[in-house]
């Protein structure tokens, strides 16, 4: 009787986002003021982000005068110089002020000391992208560089930093074999990576990071400065004087610098207020002036001051350094809650005014764009990836439910915004209140990919087994894309390196040579597969290649960690960290192992599904059912399947990961085990393990270009599978089975098994109505029970994506979920757009 039918009035309903675009509305929901709408319009109309160079120009000026001094001190002095001289501007409608640029719109900071050597080359790349956009092709991550900015780069920044910056030094310091694997045959190449590994250490000062913002709010810069002064006065041991004095002096200088900059904003606001005729704006400016005169110098007294202080701190963090994906916000609903509660009780704010203040911060964050100078970096983080997760919900350090009214306010404040910010991240655990989960599911249904969800039931035990106390583990914050941080115990601030598992497969099949790189020998010589008598022989070759790659990941990590203290310092980030402050050591020296720290470097992996499916196809077709010979398969691969469609079809129809097939899923578990075991074999310090994770951001797209055809039926240059998801469209048994497979293919037997990224796409019809909301809640609850790490949803109709490709202007506000972040669909390259469209669309069975 079958499936007589589905219970659906409208077979193809739209998500809130799609409805807003189709009806030309400016916001997805009503809880947004005219002020916020005006600001959104201005930001969108400003168009592409423009480079902002003031920070680096001032940083450079200062650095020229401090050569030879301890690095951390030079950094602090440079920040002070910036704070004293950078232009301060306040724009109409702004309530929360402070910016590193001088216009209202998206901007991108660049950092000479990081990769100044690439600046000139990058100018050319930016121009080329821009020109292509002008010709009416589909726009992609395009950046505005004004002629005057180009001149500053060519005449001031590049000449100073070329050869003095981190990137080329890092590359030079790599052992040749490692350098060759990452940067290829040309010894002078410093910008484009081979795609065998994705080495992010050269693209950023720090890996994803969340500050302990609560410290600034409760103690103020003054309180931290006092602590540094007291410590300084107590220094006695000659060794300490040498080692710790510069750090403590830097902390004092940085505190002063933050206060100075805030004061300048305060004075500007007061000045503008005195000349303002509109009474309402006058009052607003006066309030801004008062807030900036008080914070971040002093502890915040009100919600408004707390929010302003928080924003100043994160803005200052951007001036200090580039953190991968920018600054994570920590547990905002926890550290802001006391201020919210008090102000609400005292009648100083309403829920609406609190929402508006938060929305002002979200718009500030939106404008800060992460522009990458290296083409490889840009391709790995398309659509101006920046993930600045705002963590809400979960449990408190006391083990109680952490959900409070502010959790809802934060969640709701984000929902109407047709922009990519903020990245709300919800911590879910077994007892998350249904009311909260319901609100989360409703927000997910808007279709902007927010919020994303992370799992206490996985992450808390992860930290416990890696050395955290129970209260510490319970207090983790989401950081970066879908990773997490203990803001006062973790210290790993060195960018990670990803292993291209698709390439590892190719190495095992081509005796260590890469076809895309014209037979360059990147891998080991593991022999001709035709001589592999059994699947075990192939597996051994694969493992050898994987261990080879893993070893080089660890080598480059060691180089980066050793070299960074000579190039980077982060006195502000360090002064907000309990252990760094206690030991008076800059976080960038974490490689020396800061006592008490949990320092987990990381093995990133890309293309897990591609690798599993490739190995499974070979096992099934060549060894188990003997439908295919090595000769035929290798020949078809070599031709990139051209003229070999029947063989490709066999491969495509072989058993695939994500469909609940035990032996196939088990390959995924084994791949992770091999990596983890390999890392354990070489690890240097007790209790400091390499964690294994799969958070590729958009790297699976460029890394796919580097891998020739793979036995899962994938042609070159198609993207690899993404996160820990199955290969695109290959998980045909629906979301329940896909999640089951993912849970089973996760090597949870190892305590250092870390973050995994899961994307799930539903059509709006699947989650329509109250029934649909419940369904989504049940899916999230089950995911929680399966102890997976993270999940996020795209709730969108395929036809909307196709329409957006045709009419980018109409759909310029269309937001899609990429990795741990959302981006405007039209900001993505055509290849990335195709990747999004190809992701499996989960429908409820009818």
């Amino acid at each position, binding site marked *: *009787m*079958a*499936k*007589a*039918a*589905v*219970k*659906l*009035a*409208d*077979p193809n309903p739209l998500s809130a986002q799609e409805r807003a675009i189709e009806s030309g509305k400016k916001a997805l929901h009503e809880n947004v003021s005219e002020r916020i709408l005006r600001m959104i319009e201005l930001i969108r109309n400003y168009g592409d982000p423009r480079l902002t160079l003031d920070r680096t120009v001032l940083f450079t000026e200062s650095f020229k005068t401090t050569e030879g001094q301890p690095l951390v001190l030079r950094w602090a002095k440079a920040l002070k110089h910036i704070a004293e001289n950078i232009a301060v501007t306040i724009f109409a409608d702004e309530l929360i002020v402070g910016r590193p640029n001088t216009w209202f719109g998206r901007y991108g900071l660049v950092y000479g000391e990081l990769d100044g050597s690439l600046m000139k080359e990058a100018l050319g790349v930016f121009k080329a992208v821009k020109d292509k956009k002008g010709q009416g092709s589909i726009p992609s991550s395009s950046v505005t560089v004004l002629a005057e900015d180009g001149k500053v780069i060519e005449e001031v920044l590049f000449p100073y930093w070329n050869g003095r910056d981190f990137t080329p030094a890092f590359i030079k310091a790599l052992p040749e074999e490692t350098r060759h694997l990452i940067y290829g045959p040309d010894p002078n190449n410093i910008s484009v990576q081979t795609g065998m590994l994705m080495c992010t250490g050269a693209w950023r000062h720090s890996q994803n990071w969340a500050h302990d913002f609560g410290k600034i709010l409760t103690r103020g810069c003054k309180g931290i400065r006092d602590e540094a002064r007291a410590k300084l006065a107590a220094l006695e041991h000659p060794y300490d004087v040498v080692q710790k004095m510069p750090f403590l002096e830097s902390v004092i200088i940085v505190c002063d610098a933050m206060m100075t900059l805030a004061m300048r904003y305060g004075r500007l606001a007061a000045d503008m207020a005195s000349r303002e005729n509109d009474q309402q704006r006058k009052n607003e400016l006066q309030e801004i002036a008062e807030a900036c005169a008080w914070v971040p110098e002093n502890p915040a007294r009100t919600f408004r001051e707390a929010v302003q202080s928080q924003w100043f701190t994160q803005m200052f963090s951007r001036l200090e350094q580039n953190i991968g994906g920018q600054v994570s916000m920590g547990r905002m609903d926890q550290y802001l809650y006391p201020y919210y509660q008090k102000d609400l009780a005292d009648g100083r704010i309403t829920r609406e005014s609190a929402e508006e203040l938060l929305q002002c911060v979200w718009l500030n964050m939106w404008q800060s764009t992460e522009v990458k100078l290296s083409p490889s970096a840009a391709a790995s983080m398309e659509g101006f990836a920046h993930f600045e997760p705002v963590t809400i919900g979960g449990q408190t350090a006391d083990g109680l439910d952490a959900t409070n009214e502010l959790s809802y306010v934060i969640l709701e404040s984000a929902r109407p915004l047709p922009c990519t910010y903020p990245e709300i991240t919800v911590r879910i655990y077994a007892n998350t209140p249904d009311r909260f989960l319901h609100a989360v599911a409703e927000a997910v249904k808007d279709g902007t990919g927010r919020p994303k969800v992370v799992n206490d039931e996985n992450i808390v035990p992860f930290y416990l087994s890696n050395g955290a106390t129970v209260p510490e583990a319970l207090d983790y914050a989401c950081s970066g894309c879908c990773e997490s941080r203990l803001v006062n115990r973790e210290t790993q601030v060195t960018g990670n390196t990803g292993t291209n598992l698709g390439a590892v497969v190719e190495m095992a099949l081509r005796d260590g040579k890469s076809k895309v790189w014209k037979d360059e020998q990147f891998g080991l010589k593991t022999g001709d597969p035709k001589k592999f008598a059994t699947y075990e022989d192939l597996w051994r070759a694969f493992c050898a290649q994987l261990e080879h790659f893993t070893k080089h990941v660890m080598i480059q990590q060691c180089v980066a960690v050793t070299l960074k203290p000579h190039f980077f310092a982060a006195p502000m980030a360090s002064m907000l960290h309990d252990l760094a402050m206690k030991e008076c050591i800059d976080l960038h020296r974490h490689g020396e192992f800061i006592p008490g720290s949990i320092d987990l470097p990381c093995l990133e992996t890309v293309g897990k599904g591609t690798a599993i499916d490739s190995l499974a196809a070979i096992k099934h077709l060549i060894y188990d059912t003997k439908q295919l010979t090595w000769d035929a398969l290798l020949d078809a691969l070599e031709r990139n399947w051209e*003229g070999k*469609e*029947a*063989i490709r*079809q*066999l491969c*495509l*129809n072989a058993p695939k990961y994500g469909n*609940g097939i035990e032996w196939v899923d088990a390959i995924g578990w084994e791949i992770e085990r091999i990596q983890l075991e390999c890392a354990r074999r070489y690890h240097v310090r007790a209790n400091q393990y390499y964690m294994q994770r799969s958070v590729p951001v958009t790297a699976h797209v460029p890394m796919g270009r580097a891998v020739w055809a793979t036995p899962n039926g994938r042609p070159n240059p198609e993207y690899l599978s993404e996160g820990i998801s199955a290969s695109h469209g290959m998980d045909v*048994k*629906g*979301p*329940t*089975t896909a999640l*089951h497979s993912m849970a089973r293919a996760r090597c949870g037997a190892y305590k250092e098994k870390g973050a995994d990224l899961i994307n799930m796409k539903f059509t709006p019809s699947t989650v*329509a*109505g*109250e*029934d649909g909301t419940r*369904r989504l809640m*049940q*899916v999230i*609850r*089950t995911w929680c*029970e*399966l102890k997976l790490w993270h999940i996020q949803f795209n709730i969108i109709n395929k036809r909307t994506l196709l329409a957006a490709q045709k009419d980018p202007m109409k759909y310029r506000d269309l937001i899609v979920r990429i990795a741990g972040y959302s981006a405007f669909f039209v900001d993505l390259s055509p290849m990335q757009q195709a990747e999004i469209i190809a992701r499996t669309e*989960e429908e*409820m*069975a*009818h």
Partner: protein
Amino acid sequence: MSQATPNQKGLVLNIQHFCTNDGPGIRTTVFLKFCSLRCKWCCNPESIGQRPELAYDINKCIGKKACGKCLQPPAPEGAMYVLDGPDDRVHINWDLAQGCGEETTSVCPTGALYLFGQEMTVDQVLDEVEQDSAFYRESGGGVTLSGGECLLQPDFSTALLAEAHERGINTAIETAGNVPWAFMEEVLPHVDTVLHDHKLTDPIRHKKWVGADNTRILANFKKAYETFPDKTFIARTPIIPGVNDDEEHIRSVLAFIRPHKNVVDYQLLPYHRYGETKYGFLGKVYELEDFTPPSSETMDRLRAIIDESFGRTAAGKTG
């Protein structure tokens, strides 16, 4: 009580996960082959026959030049052929292809040729079903047997449902009820929720549209309500405009079920045309192309009658 027999085999069409309209919660629906009715709107034509059936999706065929594997034995001569012209994709002579089975379809690398229906043991089915158990726990879901007519494989269904209970899985069936009472009597003890169809009221029209009259069906249902007072029954009607979208039908079903406390709901399902392409895969013609899905107004109007009868407010009942 029959013993759970894990090796018992049945003819299974398909196992579908994440079903949300086949009983409470998130469910996995197991479709069994074989049906004793012939509903003109049937959207599962592949489920009707008693044996595995050849199916073919021409859109997946990559053609004679690239492949051509099915154009030679073991396929019977002439069963698969190619027309002259640039399009070298395979066509099927359905008469000659009658007896094609596994040995023919297994040569096809693309899955264009495949079989509807495969023998599976109780354990094979439940091992797959059980993978979703975390979802059942969270949603109050479980396994649903559907078809075809799942009661036409009574021993298999019994074994499967009993074993599902052994594994702690909630069970439901979907049945049209056109089977000997003995079959129902055998299976129902192992079923938690019985979803049963009332397609038409009038026996003559029932015979015209469904291929059999409904005397035995109604007798079975009535006896089932009475014999299994602790089971949950949910009556259902697929609404097909022009066939059974009249208030009279709804009211007469209500009159039939309302005296029985264990019939807890009456659900209406709008007809859809999803089955249409499958007729093509089987080389059959979709006879009545002019069925259209009901309007949402019709659905609302008819559902209001049911809500009233069950003493519910109409709001929130539409999907």
